[in-house]
């Protein structure tokens, strides 16, 4: 900086107020007292996804027609885009900011679209170097396979042990193929195997496989699910014609011959009850669902309930079974009692209370019980602690025995496919940390997405991954001037008469045109998508386009801190901080 120039007479002065020397020392950035910065934030959909899928990122790629890259973005977090794109309860959509604008994004449909475009995965090398450590995974459900998949991608030698003749766990035997066709599941399991995961079927822990056999592994992940149907504990449960929903679905899914009667009562209000009833309908039976609380308390997904109703299945609410009545050892009648709702129970739902003298009987020839599932924990050694009929684990999925981890339905009450995938991923990260002697707690803290336990594998694996602040972007923080109203693109469904005759998939998925139209609806909350608004509006030409992970950077030599870039960012992908002077 030059010293102050003193003029003594006007003739020494320039004819207009122009500096006499070079002013490059005085970059106008020095005027700034607030500093804008590119800071991606957490989109609400991503924070709500138990599997941690980076939703705006994959949808952005769909919008550009880059389907395989979109697939890879999903697979960074979950090996099951095709499965989740069909059966996920999509909490992402319930949290979508678009709800306050017109209609939420069809995220679930887009995930399926992406998976349906993907070719079978070629066997490839892990994304990190090969490691000699071996890890055993017990159970090939979504949690076990998710854990195995992520560990294999990290280079570990992973073997999955499955009790049944086919892998997939609940995806294989619990979900009917009209919701999840078997070829879709087979394809994604094959993709997981292509990543180097070895799957051994007909290997039941507690049967042919013992805990002792697992000691040769560096770590063990238990994910055997919850496959024991809860009893009603009323008289007559052992009569012929009385069975569990889980057994029915398992037999159908494994191709066994199944016989159901005409008058079929299904007890329960969860997905198993709904699936069992819809399966009965497809087998020619006439199902009636009995639920002891009201629709509001029903744990089944809304979509399942509405599809069942579309198909003409009757659901009676506030009815509890009291006795199963038989003739010659076979069920003939079900005695029930009417209920009313009382105070809240420990799950926060209103408790059903029997109305005295309201008993009545129904004629039934088959009774299916689907009143909840519990894990089978009989094979566990005594030193693995169990609490409330579940394996007790810490935040890092660790059980009370060293090197043994557990997750999925056997360890948690959040029993959805997406949660199971998330728990498997969490265990994989935890196992990697333990083997590589890194502090699990701080690592998990650093890769969380939002505050609901969602983790980012992309962050875990990549030092250069785009950092996102944990702040979850709210609708009010968006600049709506840049968005147009647009209708949500819904998946088509088979007409009811066609769908109830067999187990064909009900939903037909989005066309490419629909998917492209849907993808561009995404606000991309908090995640820069390179829309160029900041670049266009910057009055000081201080927004520079960049080739890096973030598409822009700010030239602080000249940025005066006017904040226009922040105001004009449609998606709150810029933040401001006070300038440190």
């Amino acid at each position, binding site marked *: 900086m030059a010293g102050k120039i003193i003029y003594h007479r006007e003739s020494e002065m320039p*004819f*207009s*107020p122009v500096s006499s020397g070079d002013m490059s020392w005085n970059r106008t950035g020095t005027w700034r007292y607030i500093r804008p910065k590119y800071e991606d934030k957490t989109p609400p959909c991503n924070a709500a996804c138990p599997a941690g899928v980076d939703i705006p990122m994959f949808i952005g790629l769909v919008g550009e027609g880059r389907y395989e890259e979109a697939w890879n973005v999903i697979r960074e977090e979950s090996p099951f885009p095709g499965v989740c794109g069909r059966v996920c309860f999509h909490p992402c959509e319930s949290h979508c900011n678009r709800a306050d604008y017109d209609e939420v994004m069809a995220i679930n449909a887009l995930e399926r679209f992406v998976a349906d475009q993907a070719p079978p995965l070629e066997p490839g090398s892990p994304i990190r170097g090969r490691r000699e450590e071996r890890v055993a995974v017990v159970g090939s459900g979504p949690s076990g396979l998710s854990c195995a998949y992520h560990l294999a991608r990290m280079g570990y030698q992973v073997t999955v042990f499955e009790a049944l003749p086919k892998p997939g766990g609940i995806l294989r035997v619990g979900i009917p193929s009209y919701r999840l066709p078997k070829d879709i599941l087979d394809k994604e399991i094959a993709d997981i195997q292509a990543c180097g995961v070895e799957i051994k079927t007909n290997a039941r822990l507690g049967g042919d496989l013992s805990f002792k056999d697992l000691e040769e592994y560096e770590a063990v992940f238990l994910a055997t699910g919850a496959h024991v149907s809860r009893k009603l504990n009323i008289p007559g449960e052992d009569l012929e014609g009385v069975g569990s929903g889980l057994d029915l679905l398992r037999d159908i899914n494994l191709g066994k011959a199944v016989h159901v009667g005409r008058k079929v009562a299904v007890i329960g209000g969860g997905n198993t009850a709904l699936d069992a009833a819809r399966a009965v309908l497809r087998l020619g039976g006439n199902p009636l669902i009995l639920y002891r609380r009201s629709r509001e308390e029903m744990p089944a997904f809304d979509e399942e309930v509405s599809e069942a109703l579309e198909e003409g299945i009757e659901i009676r609410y506030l009815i509890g079974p009291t006795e199963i009545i038989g003739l010659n050892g076979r069920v003939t009648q079900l005695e029930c009692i009417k209920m009313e709702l009382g105070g809240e129970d420990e799950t926060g739902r209103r408790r059903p209370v029997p109305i005295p003298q309201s008993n009545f009987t129904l004629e039934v020839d088959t009774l299916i019980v689907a009143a909840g599932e519990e894990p089978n924990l009989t094979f566990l050694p005594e030193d693995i602690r169990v609490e409330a009929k579940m394996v007790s684990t810490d935040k890092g999925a660790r059980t009370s025995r060293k090197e043994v981890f557990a997750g999925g339905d056997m360890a948690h009450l959040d029993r959805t496919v997406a949660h199971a995938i998330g728990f498997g991923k969490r265990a994989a990260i935890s196992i990697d940390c333990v083997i590589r002697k890194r502090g699990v707690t701080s690592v998990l803290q650093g890769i969380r997405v939002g505050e609901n336990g969602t983790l980012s594998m992309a962050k875990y694996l990549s030092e250069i991954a785009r950092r996102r602040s944990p702040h979850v972007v709210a609708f009010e923080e968006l600049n709506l001037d840049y968005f147009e109203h647009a209708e949500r693109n819904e998946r088509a469904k088979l007409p009811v008469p066609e769908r109830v005759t067999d187990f064909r998939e009900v939903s037909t998925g989005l066309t490419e045109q629909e998917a492209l139209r849907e993808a561009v609806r995404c606000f991309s909350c908090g995640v820069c998508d390179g829309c160029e608004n900041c670049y266009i509006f910057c009055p000081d030409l201080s927004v520079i386009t960049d080739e890096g992970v973030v598409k822009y950077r700010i030239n602080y030599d000249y940025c005066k801190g006017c904040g226009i870039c922040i105001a004009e960012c449609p998606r709150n992908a810029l933040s401001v901080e006070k300038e440190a002077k």
Partner: protein
Amino acid sequence: MKRVLSGNKAVAYGVMLSRVQVISAYPITPQTTIVEELSRFCAEGEMEAKFIKVESEHSAMASIIASSVTGSRSFTATSSHGLALMHEMLHWAAGARLPIVLANVNRAMGPGWNIWTDQGDSLSQRDTGWIQLYCEDNQEVLDTIIQAFKIAETVYLPVMVVLDAFFLSHTSEVIEIPHREEVDHFLPPFEPQYRLNPKEPRSYYGMCSPDYYMEFRYKMQRAMEETVEVARVVDEEFGRQFGRTHSLLEPYRCEDAEVVMVTSGTVTSTSRVVIERLREDGVKVGLLKVKMFRPFPKEEIKGVLQGVEKVGVIDRNISFGHGGIFAQEIRSTFCNEDERPTVFGFIMGLGGRDVTPEAIEEAIHYTLDNHRPKEEILWIDLKR
């Protein structure tokens, strides 16, 4: 090359021949055809200029201020309310000492709404630091545009070239269009003393404390004072190159005149006819055409009017609460002189009302017949 051109097209040809590099303008009647013609020149490649479309006259001036700071020869045209809207930027252009040229088609200010000629718009900008040149005919318009750039780029002050609405802007005359090479020779590319240049960053037009503001104003005044001589020299040069001159002041039949009428703009042409006829009748009356209003060429005016007994000034404008503006300028020119003419201030032709030969003759006779004006403001052709 001779062409029949309206005053507005004459402006456009002057701009094209001056090889203006940046034009920014907003259309307003009666200026619009200037801009239309220029945009056509740009579109058809007759001019290599950047034509910036804007949303207002304020922005038009702001745009060419910016282009002028980079050293580009810059032009705009406007009229009446458009000029008024530019007012802030007019001060800016002059304070920044930018050699911008602006063509203003003299039009009355509203309300009452009026698109016809009146000097009120340009004279309202008297104190913005702009040189003002009033033209009498279309040839003078074209030639003055070219001269204006040369003057502006010599003294670093902006120039407003003024022409009457419709009487010039939309009236066609035969005009000699100079050859491009000759204009290039007369007006070479502009090499500014300061030029906004990212390779040599300087601070332009920043805060100026009381320590120095006054000196910059002094320098503007000095530049204005030099302009009279610079403009004379430029006109002389122009005369050598093209065989025509358009002096800042043109005395006409002033020899032994008892009365001299002072005029500007197209009123001058009508006055010439009247004076010609009166001279034939032996009336000792002359005419002084004032082309340069700012800077006001006081010494030159004294040179013509000193010793004349009575001067009648025709003003197509009025400074409310005082009177005709040219009349005031003439009075103030002589106020410290021992010998000074009696000044008769006539207001005529406001809002485009015809200034007829009869009306001019009435003014001349009033001046001849009265020892002193009976009223400070003499309204001719007023319905009262």
